[in-house]
Structures are given as structure tokens and as C-alpha cells.
């Protein structure tokens, strides 16, 4: 009876045919003597038999499967390792394209940021006529008649200023 508990634990694997020969014989010897183990084993055998009853493919279904798989797979049937290299090459191309795109985007943004300054300077240049005139006016006041020639176009200002002096 001590043997029984041990056997009960091994019965499922025996029923599944997963116990190799020397052990299997020992178990079968016990089964021949023990009625309760015997019923348990028979039930398990029946269960395994029912589990093992698989649906099988008919010939028509086999052909149907083959055809559809071949059709879907015909691109690389017979061509060695095309599948393996294509994704890799694709990835490299993708990365390159992404890099170029990033670079271009950076360049464009930089240009866009610079643009307002260009606009500003074109509407009001750094060396405007007024600037020149002011400098000339200051120059005239500091260094006398020598520079007066430059400011000659606007003679009104010095003349107006004269009465004050």
C-alpha cells in the first residue's frame, strides 16, 4: 500500500506514455494487483485518448492551405535570405532619411530665426541717411567748417541754430 501513493502520482505520466520502460513495467505490475490504481489508470487512459483525438486536415484543406500560403509567400520562395536583409537595409535607409530631414529642419529653422533681423535692417538700415546726417552734424559742431560741406544738404539746421549761439 505504501507503493500505491507513489504509483498514483506517476499514473498520469504513465497514461500519457511518458514513462520509460524499466519503470513502466514496475508500474504495470502494480496495476495488475491493485484495483483502485487500475480504475484510476483506466480513466486516465480514456482521458488521454480523448485528448489525443485531434481534428485532422482533409486533403482538400491541405491543398487549400498550401495554395494560399504559397500565394502569400511566393515573393521570397526560393530566393535566399532576401527577407532577412531587406528589413535591415530598409532600416538604414530610414535612419539616413531621418538624419537628412533633421538637418534640413534645423537649417530651415535657423534661417527662419535670422529672417526678422534681415527684414528689420532692410526697412531701416544700420547706416541710414539720417544717421549719416546726424554724425555729420555732430562732426560739424565739433570740428568746424571742414565738415560743414557734408551737411550742406541740410543747411536749415545750422542756420536755425546760429541765432542761439
Amino acid at each position: 500500500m505504501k507503493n500505491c501513493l507513489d504509483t498514483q502520482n506517476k499514473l498520469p505520466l504513465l497514461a500519457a506514455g511518458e514513462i520509460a520502460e524499466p519503470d513502466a513495467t514496475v508500474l504495470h505490475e502494480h496495476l495488475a494487483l491493485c484495483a483502485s490504481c487500475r480504475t484510476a489508470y483506466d480513466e486516465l487512459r480514456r482521458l488521454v485518448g480523448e485528448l489525443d483525438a485531434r481534428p485532422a486536415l482533409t486533403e482538400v484543406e491541405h491543398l487549400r492551405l498550401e495554395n494560399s500560403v504559397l500565394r502569400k509567400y511566393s515573393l521570397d520562395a526560393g530566393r535566399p535570405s532576401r527577407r532577412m536583409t531587406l528589413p535591415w537595409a530598409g532600416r538604414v535607409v530610414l535612419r539616413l532619411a531621418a538624419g537628412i530631414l533633421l538637418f534640413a529642419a534645423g537649417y530651415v529653422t535657423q534661417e527662419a530665426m535670422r529672417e526678422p533681423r534681415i527684414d528689420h535692417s532692410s526697412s531701416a538700415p544700420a547706416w541710414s541717411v539720417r544717421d549719416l546726417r546726424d554724425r555729420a552734424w555732430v562732426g560739424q559742431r565739433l570740428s568746424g567748417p571742414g565738415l560743414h560741406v557734408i551737411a550742406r544738404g541740410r543747411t536749415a539746421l545750422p542756420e536755425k541754430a546760429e541765432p542761439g549761439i
Partner: protein
Amino acid sequence: MTPFDTAQFRRMADRVFGLVGRVIRDRDEALDITQEAIIRSYRQCRSREEPALLAFAIKTGYRLALNASRDARRRREHLNEAAAEQVGTAGTIIDEMFQRRQVLDAALEKLSDRQQQALRLRFFADLTIAETAAVMRISDGAVKVHLARGLARLRERFEVELSKGM
């Protein structure tokens, strides 16, 4: 890849369909899933060796089948409440074999996931212990433990369900 090997394809199709066909009731749907699983294994499996391809196809097929059966069950639960009462009387005509199969499937679904997977791979997909271990990524010994416990519990469950159902 070597030119399309019909014999190899048939062996794989048989085993994947054995597994998928037992999880999915609808035969056409099971065929579709078998096809999808094999195509994916040809496309995505890194090795071209048959055991690796088979393991990949089995794994994929099992996952797809479980998802599909879960969806189907959800749909059935939605519809069946009203229909179940009508079938009640007609149900007695269903023969014993069919009923045992139904009860077995129901009992199988009550086991733990790993036990279910081990039993299904071993019996439905007709894999060896070693192949099952490779698919489940566990040791041979662990597969045997899942099988033994799963079968033992299945037997208890089966008797209970059978006495309840009949």
C-alpha cells in the same frame, strides 16, 4: 530559404491545426488561424530549421486561437442567454461522445494556464516533452510536472462535470 518543402509544410499544418482546431470550434476560422500562424513563422522565424519553425508556428497559433476563442466566448455570452432556453430540449439529442468532448473542454479551461498549455501542446499539437519544453521555455521536468498535475486535476474535474451535466 530552400524551395518550398511540401512535406514539411504538411507536417506543420497537421500539428498546428490539431492544436488550433481543438481550441476553436469553427473549422474555417481554425483553418485561417493555422494559415496565419504558418505564414508568420516562415516570415518572422530567424531559423529555417523545421523544429524552430514548428515551435514558432505552434506558439503563434496557440496565441491567436486563445484570443479568438476569448472573443467568441464573449460574443456567445452576449447572445446565448435567450438561446440557451430554446436549445434545452434539443440538447438531449446530442450524442454522448459530443457531450463528453464538451465537458472535457470545459474541464480543461478550468486548469491553470500553464497546465492547459502543457496539455494542449503535448496532446493537441502532438509535440514531444522536449518540444513542449522549448515552446513554453521551461525545463523538461517542469513540463512533466504540469502534465501530471494537469491530467490528475482534469480527471477529477471531468468526473465532477460529467456527473453534473448528465
